């Protein structure tokens, strides 16, 4: 088996860019899909409306509440993940309350949501806090005298079930580009080729066509350069090397999303092997 190598180009709290070498497209895609649809997060799933005299129906408000990303610290996340994987998602529920009464016209924001503790058997989460990623998400606008009072229950779930549980907005990859310049010195023709590239990866000076090495990874393989002068340049890609881009929603750090995705993928593969072995045993 090939050696797998990973190199991070960028790693921020909510954004990661990295290159993986030595995997197949199938595995790259499995990682991508798992990050989007199988990494559990916390989102409001049940709402008890106490009073709602706003212009929105209860359902619209509940739907909007569900879509607000909720932030948890990584220690709490680990406990929640464990709870979810044990199939006890109804036992690790976070309660939030919201009470807004408008004396003058105003807006109910996600920042008005107050964390009221965890319900269920998970007492060790006592010190944890759940709060919206942003305090400025408008839930509904209120006219003078209108009132919104509710209790919201956040549960752990996965993106496969509903997009509100997605930990990332973007998880995408592309093949690593391989650009080959066949004819370096081709006079004025080369300028046409360099100008065709929308990402400015090629440079032409003194009748010589060159790649700008630090920009090669920006290539989208659009082949505009190839079209401009087919005899001069060839664009292809390495299908065992991938450039990944992952943009998080701020729910948990992207590094944690990727780590959890890989662990969940391995667990799935393991359970597949287990089931397979069991079914072979029962046959013989």
């Amino acid at each position: 088996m090939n050696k797998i190598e990973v190199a991070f180009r960028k790693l921020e709290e909510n954004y990661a860019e990295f290159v993986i070498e030595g995997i197949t497209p199938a595995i790259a895609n499995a990682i991508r899909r798992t990050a989007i649809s199988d990494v559990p997060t916390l989102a409001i799933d049940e709402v008890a409306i106490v009073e709602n005299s706003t212009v929105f129906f209860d359902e619209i408000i509940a739907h909007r509440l569900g879509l607000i990303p909720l932030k948890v610290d990584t220690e709490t996340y680990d406990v929640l993940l464990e709870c979810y994987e044990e199939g006890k998602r109804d036992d690790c529920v976070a309660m939030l309350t919201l009470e807004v009464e408008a004396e003058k016209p105003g807006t109910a924001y996600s920042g008005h949501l107050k964390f009221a503790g965890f319900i269920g058997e998970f007492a060790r989460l006592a010190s944890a806090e759940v709060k919206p990623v942003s305090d400025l998400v408008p839930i509904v606008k209120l006219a003078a005298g209108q009132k919104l009072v509710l209790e919201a229950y956040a549960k752990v779930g996965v993106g496969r079930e509903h997009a509100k549980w997605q930990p990332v907005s973007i998880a995408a990859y592309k093949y690593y580009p391989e650009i080959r310049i066949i004819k370096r010195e081709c006079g004025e023709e080369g300028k046409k080729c360099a100008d065709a590239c929308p990402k400015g990866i090629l440079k032409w000076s003194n009748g010589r066509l060159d790649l700008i090495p630090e920009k090669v990874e920006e290539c989208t393989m659009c082949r505009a350069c190839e079209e401009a002068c087919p005899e001069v340049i060839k664009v292809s890609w390495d299908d065992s090397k991938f450039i990944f881009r992952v943009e998080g929603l701020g729910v948990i750090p992207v590094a944690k999303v990727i780590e959890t995705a890989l662990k969940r993928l391995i667990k799935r593969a393991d359970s597949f092997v287990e089931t397979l072995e069991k079914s072979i045993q029962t046959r013989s």
Partner: protein
Amino acid sequence: MIIPVRCFTCGALIGDKWQKFSDRVKRGEDPSKVLDELNIKRYCCRRMMLSHVELIDEVLKYETYG
């Protein structure tokens, strides 16, 4: 009616940026520049802002409560 919480296509949070976007554009700034500065990069998220009409303000005028 009111700005959606997330982008329909990619799911990025955009609802919290509407007020800033709307205020600045009304003041006469270039929408494209404002979107760049709010770090809304993809065109799926940008159209969420550009095509939005805050109709709830009109509905609120007809509130019958109280």
